[in-house]
């Protein structure tokens, strides 16, 4: 079966599927987990770095989370080199929008643009699709805070809490259970930070819960303007100490 319809990216199988695109999505399911949660005051992103060797110089910060624009931050899962190209393209597109309209780019427009690029590679032959998914967190004055997920096929969807990468389905069900969605007590920013840590600590090995393996970023409003903050090593450790450790203590007691 395979081999007949998956040698070229743009060939449909008799069931109407594009195998190369599905394989690209499968590649993402083996990548480091990325979680993001939307709350009233901002969005928290967390990403797991899969360390290959302890000889690797990890003093270089930022591997999975990138600031795209003053109002946009993205977490990536999949082939990093593919993601790099798309991040670069997104940054360029945001700046082009700024130069044309003298305003920050609406979040959905940027996501649409990334997805148009991704879709192109599933339709025109000769090149493989991008093996990267994104969680894009952003703010714009029209809609407010927004969280989008993209996939290699070029689909995108908006979420309140989302997860991509390894163990994403179990993380997604944990998020579904724990996400407070009632009007009276909505998720606060602190709640979402706590929940991110909690889910991360459940789906990855607890010995790995440190700034060596995890990255955090947030987007909030400061004086009415969006602010992207990528946590430093020490801030990440502080957050993990505060939330992830306390959860572990309770469960062991």
């Amino acid at each position: 079966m395979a081999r007949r319809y998956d040698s070229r990216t743009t060939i449909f199988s008799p069931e109407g599927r594009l195998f190369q695109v599905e394989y690209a999505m499968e590649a993402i399911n083996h990548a480091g987990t990325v979680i993001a949660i939307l709350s009233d005051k901002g969005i928290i992103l967390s990403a797991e770095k899969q360390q290959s060797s302890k000889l690797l110089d990890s003093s270089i910060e930022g591997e999975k989370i990138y600031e795209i624009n003053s109002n946009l931050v993205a977490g990536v899962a999949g082939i990093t080199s593919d993601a790099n190209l798309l991040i670069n393209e997104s940054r360029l597109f945001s700046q082009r929008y700024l130069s044309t309209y003298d305003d920050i780019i609406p979040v959905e427009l940027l996501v649409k643009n990334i997805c148009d690029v991704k879709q192109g590679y599933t339709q025109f032959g000769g090149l493989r699709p991008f093996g990267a998914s994104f969680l894009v967190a952003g703010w714009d004055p029209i809609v407010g805070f927004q969280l989008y997920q993209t996939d290699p096929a070029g689909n995108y969807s908006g979420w309140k809490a989302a997860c991509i990468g390894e163990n994403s389905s179990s993380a997604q069900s944990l998020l579904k259970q724990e996400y407070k969605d009632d009007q009276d007590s909505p998720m606060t920013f602190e709640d979402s930070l706590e929940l991110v840590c909690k889910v991360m600590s459940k789906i990855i090995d607890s010995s790995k819960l440190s700034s060596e393996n995890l990255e955090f970023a947030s987007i909030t409003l400061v004086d009415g303007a969006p602010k992207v903050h990528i946590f430093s090593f020490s801030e990440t450790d502080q957050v993990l100490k505060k939330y992830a450790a306390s959860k572990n203590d309770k469960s062991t007691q």
Partner: protein
Amino acid sequence: MDIQLGIAGKDFVVLLADKQIINSIMTIKHNQDKIYELSKHVAMSVSGEAGDVDTYAEYIVGNAKLYAFRNDHELPIDSCAKFTRRQLAEALRSRSPYQVNILMGGYNPQLEKASLYRIDYLAAISNVPFAAHGYGAFFCYSLFDRLYKEDLTENDAVQILAACISELDKRFVARHSSYTLKVINKAGLRIIDNEEFLKHVKQF
């Protein structure tokens, strides 16, 4: 001999333009609407080289509408003005520049604020409380300076425009009989009837 005026208050903008189309010493038309509507909350008056005015205005209106279709929301006034300036600046440095002067006014529902932009044919842009283009400018800026108040109402603005037209009728060689007036505020865009407006203009 075009007359283009604009006044912005805190939460509204009024644009005025004459309705005359001229060619050499001939008047071709007396009822041309020179204030183009870009969206529910943005409009612009355009003057300059006759063909350029139509081509450029249609291009900008088309782009504003395309943006609204693509993004499910309208292009806000500030972005609209910067886009218009940018396109004009790029055309200026090409083989086919447009010779158009623009007053663009609008209301931003998100910021709850009205803005008026003056853009000239060299693509200079400024965000101003009041503005005029063409020959009308020589007569009207002094009146604007004297009569404009920061917290003026829509009615005050119409009165100032009426004072400007009275002055033009008195001192300017060319006389117009009718004008287009458009007000943009939170509710959207409204046209002020020419006959109603002329009641406020002193007759000589």
